[in-house]
């Protein structure tokens, strides 16, 4: 009895030592999407949608992606509007061609938004190359 138990025990321990394998460490992020999951036709299309969403899709109070603020307001085509001159002050500066400096936050945020759009487009194109359809 004792002897059998001993062998059983040794067997169990050996099994335990061998059992651990790499699969145990497999883990999928929870509540977010791992980039590798996006390489399907449906998801690539969604990446394209996200790229389009970078175009003029902002809330009206933060129109950084809406290029007309930066372009048209400098021409006769449009007028900044708003409550006062200090409402969206940066655009007033663009309109008047006064104190237009690269450090203006409106400029920075615009470029940030545009580059976000570019990165979405590149991401979508890259994934498009990876699927065979």
């Amino acid at each position, binding site marked *: 009895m004792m002897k059998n138990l001993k062998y059983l025990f040794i067997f169990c321990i050996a099994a*335990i030592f061998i059992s*651990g394998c790499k699969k145990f460490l497999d883990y999928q992020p929870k509540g977010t999407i791992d980039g590798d999951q996006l390489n399907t036709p449906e998801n690539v299309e969604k990446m394209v949608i996200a*790229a389009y969403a970078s175009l003029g899709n902002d809330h009206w*109070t933060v129109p950084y992606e809406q290029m007309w603020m930066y372009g048209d307001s400098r021409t006769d085509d449009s007028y900044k509007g708003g409550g006062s001159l200090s409402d969206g002050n940066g655009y007033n500066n663009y309109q008047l061609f006064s104190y237009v400096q690269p450090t203006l936050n409106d400029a920075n945020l615009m470029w940030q938004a545009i580059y976000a759009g570019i990165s979405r487009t590149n991401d979508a194109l890259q994934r498009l190359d990876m699927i065979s359809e």
Partner: protein
Amino acid sequence: MKKIKRLRICGVNCAMMRLSLVISLVCCGISATWANKTDAQGILDKTVTIEISNEPLSVAIDLISSKTKISFNYAGNIMNSERKVFLSAKNKRLSDLLDELLNPYSLGYIVFNDKIIIRSNNRQAAYNPVSSDGFMADLQFYSQVDIRGRVLDKNGDPLEGVSVLISGTNRGTTTDALGEFSLKAVDKNSTLIISNVGYERQTVAVRGRTELEIVLEPLDNNLEKVVVTGYQQERKKDLTGAVSVVNLSSIKDNTSNNSIQALQGHIPGVFITSDGNPNGNATVQIRGITTLNDNSPLYIVDGVPMKSGINQFNTNDIESMQVLKDPSSASIYGARASNGVIIITTKQGKRGRTSLDFSSSVTASWYNTKLQVLNTEQRGRVLWQAAINDGTSPDNLPIYKYQWHTDPNTGPILDQVIIPTWVDSAAGIRSADTKWFDVISRTGLIQSYNLAFSTGNDKGSTRISLGYYDNKGIIRETGYKRATARVNSEYRLFNGRLKVGENISLSGSQAIPDAGAVGLAEIVQPILPVHTLSGGWAGPSGAGFDDRDNPARVVDDTKWNRLSILDLVGNTYLDFSILKNLSVRTNFGVQYEGARQKSIDKTFQSGFLSRTINGLTVQQADNINWAWNNTIDYHIRLDEHYLDVLGGMEMIKNNADTFSAYREGFALQTPDYFYLNAGTGNKNNAGIGGGYALLSYFGKLNYSYKDKYLASGTLRYDGSSRFGGNNKFGLFPAFSLGWRLIKENFIEQHLGFLSDLKLRFGWGQTGNQEISNNAIYALYIPQYGDPNNVGGISNGTAYGISGQDNGTLPSGFLAIQQANPDLKWETTTGTNTGLDFGFFNQKLSGSIDYYTKNTKDILVLSPYAAVIGDGGSQWKNGASVHTSGIDFILEYQDRMGDLSYSVTTSISHYKSRITRLPAEVVNSYPGNSEKTILGHSPNAYFGYIADGIFASQQEVSNHAMQPGKAIGRLRYSDLNGDGVVDDLDQDYIGSADPDFIYGVNIGVSYKHFDLALFFQGVQGINLYNSYKIYSDFTSVWGGSNYGKRTLDAWTPQNSGSSIPALTLADNNNEKRMSTYFVENASYLKWRNLQIGYNFRSRQHESTGGYSMRVYIQAENLAIFKDNKGVRNFSAPDPENPSSALPRPFNLTLGLNITL
């Protein structure tokens, strides 16, 4: 040398346990025996000069009796021998004389009640006495018995080689391998002295018993003591790494619910910071800074690894605690060990003993570190002065009116501050002089009750314990309640070769979280009353107030908030000795923590602050960890070689889930109504999940030669789900060497005063994997785009790609993080060089350790250039930190008669600096374009050097260009001498790392009394005193109250002041980070004073012996801090510079009973 045993569990003993053991075993009669022995020794030490020649024994005895004035009793028949006495003695001790006289007759003697009773060494003779007048009464005391006994350690394992001596004689024996001894013909009334190296000496009254079982308690700080060092146990004297064994008896009555908080100052190298939150907050940092991320250690409770939740454990259930401080000892825990490891083992039932322990304590606590704030009149006075200093009219100030005039010689003079009757008559707010600290605080009350039942025999043991802890904090409504239950049991089968056991603990706590009332009491104006006339809350009204709310309202409206935590921690194990030297063990442990927080936002109106819609947020976080480890252990002793090999594997998995739900619109505002379903308004919810897995293989090898040369090596191979595919597994090696010089002949021969001397050296690598579960992945989320996001870029991913412009639009994904498949653990490589020493049989002992450690590949989340677009942030291995330091501990313990005392001092020092940072991360740390944090501690402050106050216009003119400079303003040093005080004139101006931390613990016991004192301090630490912006400046926060220090601000008349002149506009930008705010926060605190009295029952244990201890204890009695220096600490408590909950002064009455 005793052979090494694989003792199951051992550790620091608790004085209460020790007491109960002594009581139940020695029990009655101990003091009688002791007195007896003392008298006996006095009599026997008398010297005698006598000459006896050819006399019968009885005559010789009579002669001695007349010489010494001591009466002798004996039964006549034992004197029947014909043998005559020839004796010549000069100044001979009576005991020696009697031995010489009586031995030839096979007679012995004992001393009783100042008499010497002579009796036969032959038992039969003793049982056949001749009755003689008055002798019968004495005879019963010298009848004899044969004794068989067993000596065990506190775990019930037999102790071999223990000395057993009959008190007052030279007779004795030692125990065999089974711990057994036998003594023939021992006097029924004699006392046995049981002693063994490394254990407390015990005296046991025989009292006619023939079977004795004696349990010896290990001495504190003893070399033979077995300590748990990671999957196995070692004798303290065999340790080669830096392992601190916690002396739990010195913290057992601490009123904190958190045993880790109670350790503050007790262990060298362990820096614990804490506040007075009733839930027992504590931050632990072992040996300085190891990483730029989480520096908290790993806890192993009965083999279950955990990162938090220690304050949920009952301190009374803890048997031992060890701190593995250096990489060579902690490396066995691999990728989670770089911050050090604290190993906690819980109490087991004792073999051969059944006992019931009860302890309770009641503590009152007081707030004795209140900040000094202005009252209503003083605040008006201060503002008037500020306006005068600015050259503006005080008559335009809000709230206050003034009677003042200008003296032609001395300038403006304030006659009277006119406080308006109403702050806001419409709202019914009558002006007051409220002491907000008194309003929000109260006398706290802490209660603690513990009950433990423990039993055990050869087949198994069980310990059941219950605890209840209730801390009503000194800030009104704050509190923490906890109930704990624990069952630990172990069963032994096949003659103890198979052990099966479990430890399980359930604890539930409920806290009322701190609502920030202390911070509000510092800054809310005293002119506000608590209530309006109609009984509502008074609040900021009109000009002159900022938007900080009435602290009393905040306290009252948050009193229904609850943070409830349920913890289930347990493990079950199986330990099988396959062969004598080979054992396997499997251990499965689980830690579950469920935390539920209920936060109620009631509607209120408080001045111009209000909430009109009430709401309820319920959050639930579930965290479950399980760990399964399997080890195999083989040890062998061949002549003078000892080898111990351990191999094992471990699997750890963690899953965490949280969700929260929010609902608005509750018709009733009662705690019983605030449940989600009852709300009728807007709803919201959120939730996240996460987890990780670890798979590890490890091995350890201990070798010793002649008990003199020690070597140990460990290797751990750790895989973590948190690491990238290219670096899934990491290897963590370590080795350490020890040389017990005390065993060398030259030490033994020439330096006999040494009792221990050991040199240790260790090297090792450990890891840190404490980063986000998802750090390696490229992550995307769908973000529909919040139409109400007014402040920033919406980053929405929804677009009407097919042309629709209403309804739900199709949505894409947004990148939020870039992948890094190369991501790996942080590696800490460290060395430790230590010396353990002991003098005079360990009366004086201690150790000193020097260590260095370098952590590289520290994980940093790097910022990114906007050109990358969405989600450019990425976790990288990049930074390095170097830390070195010294730990020192010294202990002295001695005994003088009934007085025993001990003094333990620990001091430690560390210095940390960042040695490398990726270029893109450097700017995330304090610094400028010329100076970077490299070479400084991550806790360093960066700012200007305030070198005084401009006293004259000439000083102002001579100083470099400093916008806003004026008389009475702070002068900032122009460090680079370019004539302008600007960004480049900043420097590193101190750090929150202390030069050294220390603690002194003193314990004294005298007869039934014991006394304990504990002091703890931190020296050479700088802290940013965030309150100083209120206590010294009226210019920064307009509508708030200020500190009393403003009354002493600089004026031309008060030019000695170091506080800049009061002003209403901070034109000189004095709120900037400067040495003005970074103060010397060194302190020495008298933490504890305790006086106890021990009662001991005189009954035999079978008739219900008990021991009892009552004590009175005071905590946080005094704070000593820098009050005079250039950078003196200007607030009352350097330990809590900001608005954290203060640590109170506590007065405790406690009771422990052991049955």
